[in-house]
Every structure is written in structure tokens, then in C-alpha cells.
């Protein structure tokens, strides 16, 4: 029971009123700069474009235009003070907490604004904070204001063919040569590399140390000689991510991030900033496609609304979706009231993948054989784009299996799997394809 609202009590530190003011400010900005998204209660079947996208398979021209829209919106945010909510004021930030950031995301998700994932997901969300934590004054001053103003796009040169879930197993070599380092190797699954100006690369600098202790991080100019970006075509048809080949790429030592052989600490900062996007997943075409109004319209259009089997599955889907939505909203509200982020984000991600996957397979079953070929009939073949994206939801941003390890070990306190890979020199480790 709240008995006194003027004197802050220990249970309610000053944060709560700051948060109210922040929410008011952010809402004023959004109201002035964007349109609030209308809540959709019923879907008119057959109206609008016949596309259900998750990953785009836009032409390169359309993709480039969307990048420009994203940069423009980021610039607008930055100028209004919301470009880097957690960042220090000297780099254009607001100096607020990650909770404010999450709260802002939750607010912005209620508005129709350009999708800024191309900038924010990797660059602003993960690499910016890493530069802030590990960069020299010069590096920070060079990159951070440009990145958060939407001018510089950053990508993450982390994964490799032999370093996926086991990221510390990177093999791309960096060898010192005068004031430069020379990089050779291959990176993979690199989102936005084709739009990026700079990439944060993890490289092996000491193979005689155990794998975590011989890595160094560099900021690589993506236009430097020897950087070759090859689009990787996804099973869903588009080519949003890439392979990046590094051949004798010279990086000045001034663009090294953190200590020599201290790159794992840098990588951990990046991974820790992989954002918990609680509550902002309700938007977008995929979420709309598996929403109750959309699936209801689908059933109605296909004469299946009275089919008990279809109804049963619809109810199961809806119950899980609604509960996931409750979970997200409650988590966001706890943050607004001064709480700390909990494991809800992991639960939310697992459920999100499951809800979209099950919803899409359900829709495919209702469409039936008409899913097989594009006959031009609205709302049939178009489900394929989403269907063919669903396997990625269980892989990207940390596979479901790794997520469950993290939940099991860090949240439930279960013991780690015993292993020797963290103590063996890197050069003696078994790699895929080598003999045991």
C-alpha cells in the first residue's frame, strides 16, 4: 500500500519518479515524430499485400532504401536525445540505465517507425557499448557519435565455420607487423556486413594459450583491401547475412580494442549486451500472421472455423501466445517500477520461436496443398516465406540448446558439463574434421 508519494522510501528509490518523467518525455517525442500503431481486432482477408515476411528477400535497391530510412530515423532519435539512452552524455547519450532502454523499446513498439535493426541490433546494441568499455579515448570519440547518429553502421565479425556456439574457438589469425596487424581468415553469418563501415573482429593472436586466452579484438575498416563480402543466401531465399573473407587485411594497432590476447573480455562485453528485447516482439508481419485475428480470418476464409480439430489447435496456440504476451508486459512493468531484468527474456525468446513456428505450421496445414505452388490465390503460397524462416528462430542469437544450458546453469544452478577445452592450448584442440 502506498501511503506517501512525496518522501522516497528505501523500497522506492528516486528511480520511480525519474522513470515516470522519462516515459512522459519519450511519449511526447514519439507522439510528435511517429504515428501510433492501430490495434487490429479483425483482419479483412485478401486485403493488402500478399506477403508474410520475417527475413526480407528484398531487392538490393529496396534493401538499400530501407537502410537509409533506418539511418534517418536513428538520426531523428539521436537529435531528440533518444539515440543512445544508456550512453554517456559526452557521446550524445542520455546516461540512463538499460531499464530505461527497454522501457523506451516497449513504448516505441506501439508506433509505426522504420525498423532500425540494421543499425541497432548489432552496432548500437552490442558493438557501441563494447567500444565504450574497451576503446581508447580516440577510438571512442571517433566511432561512438557517428554510430549513434546513424552515420556509421557496425557489424560483428565473430562466428566462423569452426566457431559457432563455441565462439572462443575462432581461428582467424592476426599477426603483428610494425604498427599494423595482418588478418587472415574467414568469418560467417555476418548480418549487415554488406551495409557496414566497420566490423568488430575476434582473431587468434596466440595459439599456444588455451582458446579464451589467445584472442584479440580489432575494429576492421570494412572497405579496406582484402575484405571480401560474399552474400550467403538463406533457405528462405533472401541474402541478409554474409561470409566475410579476410586476406592480408592490415589493421593499425590503434584500432585494436582491449589488450593483446585480451579479446575474450571484449567479446563477453559484446555478448552481454545482446539485448533482452522484452515486450517489443509483438510487432511485425510475423507476429501479425500468427495473431488470433489473422488466424481466425484464415480459418474463416477456408471454411474451417467450425472444425473442432482446427479450433482446438487455435486455442492452444492462442493460450500460449497470450501467456507470452502477459509475461512480456509484466516483465516490462516490473522494470518500469525499478526492478531488474530477470530470466524472462530467455523464456520470452524460447516461447517466441515456438509460438511462431507452431502458428506457421498450423496455417500451412489449413492452406493445405495450395501451399505447394503459387497459383496467385491470396494468403496461400505467401505463407512459405515465414515457414522457411522458422528454423532460424531456434538458431539465431544463440541456439535454443545454448539458451537452455544458460537457463540450466545460471538460473537453476545446475552444474556445467565437465570439459578440458578451456585449459588445453588452442593448437592442441580437436576441430571439426580432425581425428579425435
Amino acid at each position, binding site marked *: 500500500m502506498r501511503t506517501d508519494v512525496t518522501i522516497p522510501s528505501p523500497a522506492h528509490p528516486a528511480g520511480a519518479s525519474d522513470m515516470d518523467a522519462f516515459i512522459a518525455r519519450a511519449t511526447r517525442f514519439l507522439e510528435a515524430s511517429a504515428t501510433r500503431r492501430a490495434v487490429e481486432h479483425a483482419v479483412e482477408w485478401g486485403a493488402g499485400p500478399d506477403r508474410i515476411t520475417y527475413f526480407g528477400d528484398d531487392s538490393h535497391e529496396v534493401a538499400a532504401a530501407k537502410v537509409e530510412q533506418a539511418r534517418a530515423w536513428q538520426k531523428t532519435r539521436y537529435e531528440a536525445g533518444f539515440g543512445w539512452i544508456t550512453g554517456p552524455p559526452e557521446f550524445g547519450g542520455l546516461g540512463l540505465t538499460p531499464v530505461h532502454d527497454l522501457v523506451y523499446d516497449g513504448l516505441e513498439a506501439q508506433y509505426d517507425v522504420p525498423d532500425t535493426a540494421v543499425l541497432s541490433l548489432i552496432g548500437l546494441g552490442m558493438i557501441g557499448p563494447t567500444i565504450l568499455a574497451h576503446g581508447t579515448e580516440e577510438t571512442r570519440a571517433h566511432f561512438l557519435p557517428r554510430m549513434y547518429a546513424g552515420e556509421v553502421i557496425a557489424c560483428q565479425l565473430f562466428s566462423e565455420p569452426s566457431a559457432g556456439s563455441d565462439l572462443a574457438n575462432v581461428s582467424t589469425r592476426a599477426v603483428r607487423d610494425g604498427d599494423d596487424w595482418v588478418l587472415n581468415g574467414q568469418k560467417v553469418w555476418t548480418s549487415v556486413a554488406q551495409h557496414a563501415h566497420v566490423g568488430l573482429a575476434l582473431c587468434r593472436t596466440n595459439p599456444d594459450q588455451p582458446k579464451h586466452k589467445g584472442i584479440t579484438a580489432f575494429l576492421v575498416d570494412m572497405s579496406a583491401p582484402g575484405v571480401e563480402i560474399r552474400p550467403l543466401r538463406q533457405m528462405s531465399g533472401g541474402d541478409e547475412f554474409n561470409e566475410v573473407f579476410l586476406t592480408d587485411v592490415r589493421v593499425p594497432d590503434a584500432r585494436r580494442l582491449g589488450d593483446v590476447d585480451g579479446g575474450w573480455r571484449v567479446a563477453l562485453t559484446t555478448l552481454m549486451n545482446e539485448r533482452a528485447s522484452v515486450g517489443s516482439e509483438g510487432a511485425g508481419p510475423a507476429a501479425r500472421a500468427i495473431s488470433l485475428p489473422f488466424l481466425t480470418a484464415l480459418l474463416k476464409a477456408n471454411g474451417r472455423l467450425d472444425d473442432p480439430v482446427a479450433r482446438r489447435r487455435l486455442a492452444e496456440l492462442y493460450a500460449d501466445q497470450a501467456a507470452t504476451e502477459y509475461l512480456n508486459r509484466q516483465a516490462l512493468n516490473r522494470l518500469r517500477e525499478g526492478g531488474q531484468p530477470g530470466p524472462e527474456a530467455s523464456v520470452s525468446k524460447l516461447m517466441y520461436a515456438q509460438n511462431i513456428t507452431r502458428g506457421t505450421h498450423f496455417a500451412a496445414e489449413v492452406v493445405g496443398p495450395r501451399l505447394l505452388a503459387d497459383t496467385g490465390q491470396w494468403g496461400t503460397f505467401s505463407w512459405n516465406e515465414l515457414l522457411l524462416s522458422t528454423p532460424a528462430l531456434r538458431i539465431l542469437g544463440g541456439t535454443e540448446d545454448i539458451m537452455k544450458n544458460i537457463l540450466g546453469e545460471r538460473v537453476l544452478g*545446475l*552444474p556445467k558439463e565437465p570439459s578440458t577445452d578451456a585449459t588445453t592450448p588452442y593448437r592442441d584442440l580437436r576441430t571439426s574434421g580432425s581425428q579425435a
Partner: protein
Amino acid sequence: MSGTSVEERDDLRRSVRELLARRCDDAARRVAIDSEQGHDPHLWAQLAELGATSLAIPDELSGAGYGAVEQAVVLEELGARLAPTPFFGTVVLAASALLASGDLEAQKRLLPGIAEGTTLAALAVVEADGIWKGKNFAARADQSDGSWRLTGEKTLVIDGAVADLLLVAADTDAGPTLFAVAEGPGVARTPLRTLDLTRRMATITLSGATGTPVGSIGAAGPILDAVLDRAMTALAAEQTGAARACLQASVAYARERVQFGRPIGSFQAVKHRCADMFTRVELAAAAADEAAHAADGDEDRAPFQVACAVAHTVCSESAMATAAENIHVHGGIGFTWEHSAHLYFRRAKASQLLFGGPAVHHERLLSRVGL
């Protein structure tokens, strides 16, 4: 909005948990299960003393004037311990029926005893077909000599054998009506063997028993609809508590049980099972929380009618899945009579089917969203 702060509810939770730890450990629970009444009257008295029985009853009727949110705290703890108490039958089902009846006279007469823990009550709705419904009862009530006489058979009545007060749904010439029936001539009770050992049920056979109408004649339908929504909300909290207890038991066992030279919880097959249980528990907790706050009129929540149906579906599934997984994580020991794991399995299945089972929940949920 709920009338208590998170801190106050944490205090309440701690009090109930401590009481249950003291009075309802595994041994005490077994004694209660094997006892004639099926529960420990001392525990019941202490729960009442703590105020647990009066939480959701308005203060003008001897209650504490709180709501579903506070009651959910107690239910979660009772569910976590599977404490055999008449709480669900008396404080949830019967008290909700009295409150929903709008019958102030009956409320003044009957609710204070429930709030104080001195009256055990049972709601007798279901008949031989096992279906929870609000009309077309085989049981009949007819007026003769100015008093109502009830005839018929009610079954699966939770706490029906020990209840001082029976609230019986019966058809009259003017439609389905709720009656208060006290112990007396024409009331026969037959305790039943139950799947759920921690929640007793009975068949009530009425042969000309005297009853007093609760609410208007012909008005049982809407009363029982309201009771169902409240009961699904309360059950969801109980199921969440039970699901969390199963998760905790599994995690504790996976940390201490060593096979192949290491704790089984270090194997991903077991670890991931626990992570999946955690996911289902968190989802259940969110759904139960939403329903409880919505029940108390919090406008920032989902509509109550939808939230309670979502909660019943999600929490039933969660409690069942975690109960089954808990046995599996424990292996052979989890399949023994001595281990408590089967009690959770029994409760989970019984709660899932109590109001009709998944097929019925699913249609109910769809009807709540206009389909």
C-alpha cells in the same frame, strides 16, 4: 488494483510458507492423507488464524477485504506443498458462490463462518456425467409446506464428506437454483476413492433434504459461471505453485544425484528438461498473475474472462508437464509410493480435468474471444 504491495504479499507468502513447513512436511501430509477427514484440522485452524481464509471476503462480511491477488499467494503455497486442506472447496468454490449470488442475507449468515475457518463448505454442482454446467440438473428442488426439498445425486463434490455446509445446484420449475443444505435427514454422503490423494471428494445423495435458496430462484446459471471464472483463477495459482515445486524438486535432485561420475544435472538431456520445465513454470506464473489481477479489476490487465481461461489452459498444461517430468528426472525413485512426486502427478491430472479437461477449456477460451 490490488490493495496490497508486493512487499506485503511477500510477507504473507513467508508466513504461509513457514506455517506449511512446520505443519505440513511430507510425514504430516501422509498422516493427513490417511486420516478420516483427509486433512489436518490443526493446520486448518492455523491457516484461519493467519487470516488466509478471510482474505478475499469483504470486510463487512467478516473478511479482510482483499482479493484474488492476495488469495493467489496462499493458493500458490498450498499448491507447492499440496497441503490437504479444505481451502479450495470452502474458501474458493463455496465462498465464491455465496459472493456471486448477491444474496446479502445468505452471505451474512454463511460467510463469517468461512472467513473464520469454522465452517467447512462444499459446492455440489456435478452429477453422474462429470460435467460442470449451470443448468439442466437431474437434481430437483420442489417446494412443499413452504420449504424446499431436494432430491438427487451430486458427485465429485470436493470436501463433500466433511463439509458443514453444502451449496447444491438443483433444477426447480423456475430454473436452476442454488440451495444451502445443512447436515440433516435426507443427506447421505459417500466418500470416494480419488485420483488426487490430497483432495477428497464425495457423492452426496439427497432424498428430500431441506434447503434454503441462495440467490434468486432460477439464477444458478450466472452464479456458477462467475464461480467458474474465480475457480479457474484460483486453480491457476495453485497449479503454478505445484509446477514450481516440481521444478525445484527436479533441480535439487539433478544437482545431488551422481551417475557416470557426475551430477546428472550436468548432462544436457537432464539440464534441458529442467530448462523446459522452467519455461513452462514462468509462463504459468505470468498467466496466473494476469488472471488474479484481472479478477480484482486491474484495468491494465487483459479482460478477466479471457485471462482466467488462458490461465486455466496454460497452468493446467504446465502443472501436468512438470509433474510428469519431475517423476522422470527422479527415475525409479520418483515412481515409488513413498516419494511425493506421484502426488503432484495426481493433483495435476485431477486439476486439469476438474472443470472439463483441455477440449472443454479450449472451446471455453475461444468463446471468450468471440469465436
